[in-house]
């Protein structure tokens, strides 16, 4: 069975730990550290799902997601962020995010959230 292909985007050291965590169940097609790279990588790799932080250099995750969804409407996103603010959450949902996970609970929730997103219809 083909493993779901995941693209990771974060400018923080947690990115490496996440890759190690996710590689057991998923194919990590790439890792980028800013929003603009994320957009380019998304068009390049066309992953099944994108796990991205919100606060990133050059372009924040939500804006990048909005750009990607503009050309790849079926692309799925999971936002992994430090921001627990309701505004962020609402904004993320408004661009079609599959899940909004705080980094403090990434270890417990991320893998399951990716599976759920993959399983969910586009």
């Amino acid at each position: 069975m083909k493993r779901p292909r995941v693209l990771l985007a974060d400018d923080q050291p947690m990115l490496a730990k996440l890759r190690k965590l996710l590689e057991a169940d998923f194919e990590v097609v790439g890792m980028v550290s800013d929003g603009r790279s994320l957009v380019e990588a998304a068009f390049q790799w066309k992953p099944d799902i994108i796990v991205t932080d919100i606060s990133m250099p050059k372009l924040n995750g939500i804006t990048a997601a909005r750009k990607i969804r503009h050309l790849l409407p079926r692309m799925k996103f999971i936002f992994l962020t430090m921001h627990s603010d309701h505004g962020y959450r609402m904004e993320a949902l408004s661009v079609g995010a599959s899940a909004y996970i705080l980094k403090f609970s990434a270890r417990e929730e991320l893998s399951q959230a990716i599976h759920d997103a993959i399983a969910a219809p586009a």
Partner: protein
Amino acid sequence: MERPRKGSPVRVTGKPANRTGLPTPDSLRSVEESLGETKRCAKLRLVSRILALAVGAVALLVLIGGWFLDFAPLLIVISGTVSTKVNTALCLVAVASAVLLESGRPSPVRSGLVRLCATFVLLVAVLTLIEYISGWTFGIDELLVADRTPVLVTAPGRMALATVISLLLLGCALLVGNRGRRLLCKQLLTVAVAFLCLQNLVSYLYGIEHFTGIGFYPAMSVHTSSSLLAICFAMLFSRPDCGLMSLASNENLAGSTVRRLLPATLLVPVFLGWLTLQAQLNGVHGAVFGLALFATANVAFFSCLIWNGGRQLNLMEVEKHQAQESFRLAVEAAPSGMVMADHDGKIVLVNSRTEQLFGYDRKELLGQSIEVLLPVDVRKESFAQPPARSTGIGLDLYGRRKDDTHFPMEIDLNPIETEHGTWVLSSILDITERKRAEATLRESEERFRNMADTAPVLIWVAGPDKLCTFFNKVWLEFTGRSIEQELGEGWTQGVHPDDFDRCIATYSASFDARRRFRMEYRLRRADGEYRWILDDGTPRFTSGGIFAGYMGSCVDITEKRCAEEERQKFVSLADRSLEFIGMCDLDFKPFYVNSAGMRLVGLENLEGACRIKVQDWFFPEDQPFITNEFFPRALREGHGEVEIRFRHFKTGEAIWMLYNVFNVCDSSGATVGWATVSVNLTERKRAEIAIEESRQELRALAGRLLLAQEEERKRIARELHDDLSQKIALLAFDTSNLVLASPPLPAEMTHSLCNLQARIAALGADVRQISHRLHPSILEDLGLVAALRELCEEFSARTTIHMVFEQTEIPENLPVGVAACLYRLAQEALHNVQKHARASQVGLAVSGSPDKIRLCIQDDGIGFNARSSSRSLGIISMKERVRLVEGEFSIRSQPGQGTTITVSVSLPGRQK
């Protein structure tokens, strides 16, 4: 040579004027010598009185000394001759008394006494004559004293027959009187007596001692005959200007001749006869030769006398001719027409000026009636009133020319008494020009009086003697006095006592120096109030430059003086003021600027300042505004105030002024000028500029501080988020790995790790919260609307205050600074609401347009006084934040009415 005075009656002897129109030499000389006659007559009268007194004295000596005191030498002067009788002496005293009485002023008493004396003399003489004729004796010869003299020719004490005849004639002469032809009769009787006495005296001179041998001619004593001769001269001299004596006393040629010849005729033959007789008695020659010698000597003497008389006549003729020529030239040269008319009004003399005046030839006028020249019958009037005068005075007199035209003239009439009657010498002056000048003068004077009476000033006129001669109607109405009261020095009674000396001194000194004067003094008005008047006096001179007095005008300056005093107070006040004070007329031409104002603009004298129009006092760049905007507005509103620049006239520098201008009104409220009281704002302006610059610097500094703060908070927030939060997250991640480790850790450790994991998560939340407060990353990540919405939700959750958030048409890509400003402002406002407002509901609305964004935060809290709280730090901070993005901030709040804060920020560079 004395000339006849104008108007003195002149008697002219000699022939009337000849046909040449000029007087004869005799008449001319008579005129010239007329004055000498009076003196000569006076002398003769004096001689008459002296002779009468002498005769009277001699008679009294004879009477008293000779007869009553028996002093013989007084009775018989020459031994062997007869004595002077008592009656003779009495009669001589009477005759002498009568002559003296006649010489005085005529009066009835004197005339009566004269007649009494004459009657006495006549009575004595007649009685004595009867005694001689009849041989009777009336006893009158020795009535008083017995005759004791040795020589008795007739009866004792009886006067000689010659004496009787002489006294008889003298008595008749005295009784005849002095009127008209009686005087001539009197003088003839007197002359007869004189010759009788002269004969008696000559007889004594020639040595005859007794007259017995000569028929009836009795002896007459020496002093009787001398006294009678003297009294005859006294009687003749008592009337020297009348009858026979008029010829001898006259100064004309006849009188001179008589006076020269008569004494010689009386004395020289007597003397020659005496010489011849003496020679004959001494035997020098015989009687016949002596008589021949006497005759020859008389011929020689009278020949010389006549020749000398002829020579004198010749000289006098030449003199008269010269005088005639001089007179003719004088008359011809006279500037006025000279016309002489005789007693019939016929013209006997004219000069060339008369020919010019009347247009006649001289020959045409001579012999014509004076009526030809004078339409008015002035000639008769002249004769009616002989004293010389200007006939034309008081009536318009006109002369008639040959062409029958008339001209005004003035005639001086001089009546001249001649033996042919009263002639009139007329001096005629053409006064056409004078009349015209007089008419012009009258008209001028009338015009002056009318003008003076209608003039609104007090006018006076004074003569050269400093006395006033005229006051106009306005003066008299002012003082309430009559012209008679004011004339002369009367006007000075109205001068205030305190001003009197100064006024009179100025008036008098100016008069003496003939210079114009202006003085102020107080003059009493009709109502008793003293009013200040300005008196301006100017000397007057005739066209010939002769000082004619003064003329002056006065105006009441009481109000003006009061106003001047008020003005002086104002000027004193204004000059002490440090502010710029100036006044100008309606044409904006200055007439006053105070000292401070002059110094301010660099001017040195008021005269120069007044030549500069008001507009030019302003800085050149401000002049258009002043001329076109400010002045028209000030004219409409009556005042105006503006901060504007004056210019310094020396350095050209601008001087900031608070220019306050207002209109100046007269008593009726009409605008008569403009005034300004302006304050120098230069220092204040400099201070304001400095403050503004300082404020700008402070604002810039505050802005930089805010930006720096914002940047620092942002940096710290990012550090917290990007570093510390991430590390905490990693720690939490790692902790989770331990909790989820396989094989699982002991349950107790797992439980501890779970607690640790929860505490790490809380720590992360706190750090994130701190970071969020320091700098809301959502603003950059999601934009202003999301950030504000998040802020509202967070505020509502924190405070339980109902929060309403609205947003419409927010432009995209707001400048970070603008978004941060609005966010921080909303953050501060909500913080204030939470802290102070006690509100139940808060509305936050953000709306925009492509070029503008507007934020409004409104609560229903207790509100506050926005004006008094405008300096609170929170509000100042909000304002400053808005000012940094060049926005507009407003806060509206009233106690109990909530608060509304509105911020509006323009977005430059964006198109609508």
